[in-house]
């Protein structure tokens, strides 16, 4: 019963997060100093030269539709939500006309997802492992060194690490490619090698920045847990260090780490956007960036709505891991 309540409550929060996010997206264009439709039309007109009056009107209607500027405010809001949640239709891309926005997003999404997912898992597992050991013996030299490194790495933003890595490994020693070019026939070894080769630096920059935080927070957990009665009892019982760590400390230290993962996923997503732009990696970040540069508002609204949905969904999925590791929710 408790599990069901947990899932239903979380689903409710998920829906409400989406509604708040989309409401913000709905109102943001209305606060802009310039009319986005006019700005857009001017841009299109300057790029394509002469346009028929009828063409301009059709484009204006399509743009007004994209921004949900037709009808009364309440109609607009309803139509906006309906388009995002039910039809997921953002119209054609204006810079890569007439490819639909959804198709461009579908092409970019696997890259962002693959990059962020892999980097997050590596950083989380590695950081928790190192932090757990460091917290178990906080006075030892390796633990101090690891904490020092973590403290210096954690506050440094993603793009700084990305820049430093690209300067070191692409300019100074040209080991890795400066920008991403994926080559190779589909499903071939060449393609896989090319993907791994090109993804190495972007993934490394995300892993390096995130990893410090996991060390710091799991170390604090472990140090606090060590003082608990049940750990002392288990130690007096004569259990080995390995057993103490894996069966007693780890399950308790990992719970808050999952909460933190859920809280951090939005920040990590922000970071991966910038990393992609710096490395020219063909994911969602680069798509958003090119949409801004080319004034492609359809694409921009599509990619940004999707970012919010993606982060909210990822947060919820992580929260659903909770009952798997916390028996109190499962059997409560």
């Amino acid at each position: 019963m408790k599990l069901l309540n947990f899932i239903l409550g979380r689903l409710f929060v998920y829906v409400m997060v989406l509604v708040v996010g989309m409401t913000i997206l709905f109102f943001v264009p209305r606060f802009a100093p310039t009319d986005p439709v006019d700005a857009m039309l001017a841009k299109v007109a300057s790029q394509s030269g002469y346009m028929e009056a009828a063409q301009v009107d059709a484009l204006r209607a399509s743009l007004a539709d994209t921004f949900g500027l037709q009808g009364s405010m309440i109609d607009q809001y309803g139509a906006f939500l309906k388009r995002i949640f039910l039809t997921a239709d953002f119209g054609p891309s204006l810079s890569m006309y007439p490819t639909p926005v959804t198709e461009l997003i579908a092409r970019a999404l696997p890259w962002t997802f693959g990059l962020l997912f892999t980097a997050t898992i590596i950083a989380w597992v590695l950081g928790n492992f190192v932090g757990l050991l460091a917290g178990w013996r906080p006075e030892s030299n390796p633990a101090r060194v690891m904490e020092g490194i973590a403290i210096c790495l954690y506050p440094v933003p993603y793009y700084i690490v990305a820049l430093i890595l690209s300067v070191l490994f692409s300019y100074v020693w040209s080991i890795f490619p400066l920008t991403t070019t994926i080559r190779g026939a589909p499903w071939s070894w060449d393609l896989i090698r090319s993907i791994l080769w090109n993804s190495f630096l972007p993934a490394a920059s995300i892993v390096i920045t995130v990893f410090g935080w996991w060390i710091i927070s799991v170390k604090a957990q472990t140090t606090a847990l060590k003082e608990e009665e049940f750990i002392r009892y288990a130690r007096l019982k004569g259990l080995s260090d390995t057993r103490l760590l894996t069966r007693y400390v780890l399950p308790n230290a990992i719970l808050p780490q999952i909460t933190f993962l859920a809280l951090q996923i939005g920040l990590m997503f922000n970071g991966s956007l910038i990393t992609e732009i710096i490395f020219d990696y063909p994911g969602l970040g680069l798509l958003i960036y090119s949409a801004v540069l080319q004034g492609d508002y359809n694409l921009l609204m599509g990619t940004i709505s999707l970012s919010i949905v993606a982060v909210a969904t990822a947060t919820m999925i992580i929260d659903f891991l909770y009952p798997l590791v916390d028996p109190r929710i499962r059997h409560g």
Partner: protein
Amino acid sequence: MADIRHFFQDSPFRLHVGLLLLLIVGCIGLLLPWFAPVDPLEWYTAPRNQAASAAHVLGTTSLGQDIFWLLTWAVRNSLILGLVVAFFSTLIGVFLGLTAGYVGGAADRFLSFLMDALICIPTLPILILLAALFGGQLGLTAAGVALVLFNWPFPGRQVRAVALSMREREFVNVAWFSGESRTRILTRHIFPYLAGWSAANFINTVLVVIATESALAVIGLSSARQATIGTMIYWALEYQALLAKRYVWIGAPVLAIVLLFVGLFLVSSGLAMRSSDRRMSV
């Protein structure tokens, strides 16, 4: 005076190191800009592409700007943005967090829900959208307002949690039964406990705000009319400082931001450690 000495004596080592780093960066950003001989943003006020020399300590950019003075202005603007946004975010966060935690009921449910929702929404895409709508560049004021909107829930949530636990404490009940008003209980009894947490949160917000603005600036979507640490990196990249092997131009802002962030993090975590120690001991 005794208070200050006490503060320095019982604080952890990391707080000292952090304060020292902040002092250095603060000196660069808040003191030195007053001494800039010319407006460092102005092009061709110095010979172009100079290496470091007595006249130009860090050399000059390929636009004829003195890198050292440009850096002081960039650090100043980033710091001002961070401090102002953090001030308002903390103010709103503490106020609404206290309201939620102490008043409870429907107000708490609504505010908690709003905070949870805002925390889940990624800030950067929304800022990018704003920048696009503002014609490709987001001014510092507009960016600041948006950042306040997305950053108050972090202190808010924490304040709410502390206020909830405070509500059950004996001394708060005693104050309540001796007829003190709600405002007085909040300001005189609960707020002192929150001060340490709020300070840590404030510094954390400064960090997040400067990081987010620079992220926007590095990809060229922040105001180009004002120098910030991020726009300085953007200009260096834009004018191929790397290909020309002019590493100081790009290295100086990168080093400044790293020192600033490590300093801010050390101070904020040092303060958090201190206030959790104190909370345990009460």
